[in-house]
């Protein structure tokens, strides 16, 4: 895998992770998209160095590995569908709660209720 690809994939996943830890759903969705892009780059990089298009034309030139490209294509389609679903869900969450934020865990709220006792 070339260094440029590796660094880019790492940067994408890092940025995605940062966005994933935010409170706003829209940022989480974008973060997931970035992580998926990073993963796709890793897949693409796993195919070895770039070469001629994978078409056997009798010239005998080295061709690039077609499998990772097919895998990336499949992964992109899947990610596309799921991201659309997630956006719809985020929108619905916004309609229901009229905020874009993510609340605390059910269990956390319960425990906070025990501990707070009305003080906070």
């Amino acid at each position, binding site marked *: 895998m070339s260094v440029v690809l590796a660094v880019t994939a790492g940067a994408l996943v890092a940025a995605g992770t940062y966005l994933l830890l935010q409170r706003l759903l829209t940022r989480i969705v974008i973060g997931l998209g970035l992580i998926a892009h990073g993963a796709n780059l890793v897949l693409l990089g796993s195919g070895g160095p770039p070469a001629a298009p994978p078409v056997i034309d009798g010239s005998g030139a080295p061709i690039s590995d077609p499998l990772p490209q097919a895998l990336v294509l499949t992964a992109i*389609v899947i990610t596309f*569908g799921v991201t*659309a679903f997630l956006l*719809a869900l985020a*929108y619905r969450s916004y*309609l229901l709660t009229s905020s874009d934020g993510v609340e605390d865990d059910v269990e956390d709220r319960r425990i906070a209720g025990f501990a707070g006792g009305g003080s906070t």
Partner: protein
Amino acid sequence: MKVRPSLLVETGARTMVPTLLVVSAFLLVVGHDSPGGGFVGGLLAGGALLVVFLSGGRAAVTSMLPVPAGAILGAGIMTAVATAIGGLVFGRALLDAGKLEIDAGWFGSWSVGSALLFDVGVFLVVVGLVSTVLLQLGDPEEREE
């Protein structure tokens, strides 16, 4: 209340939609040997639906689709799976492809692969999906009334 789209969009849609649909059908048919295929063709047809949606809203999309969007999706899945099972019926493997050579004399000869039928399934799935998304998510204010 419903806002009437601009005249430009309405007039543009009249020429764009048929063109887009023809090109999407073209991409679907040539897809086996050239760039194109069911997914790309389906997305383009979905784009045509989007233009219809922009110019005429939900009602225009609904009236353009012959059957409910979910049924298009289901028909697409069934076409694709039927093609896959077709291999089994002819004693070959799941998803195995066959080819039909048609010689039509003056009109030239074609070879039609069963992959085309599979692509038709994919095409229908994508169109069904795009129209479902348009009808469910597009223009929510209108839906709530």
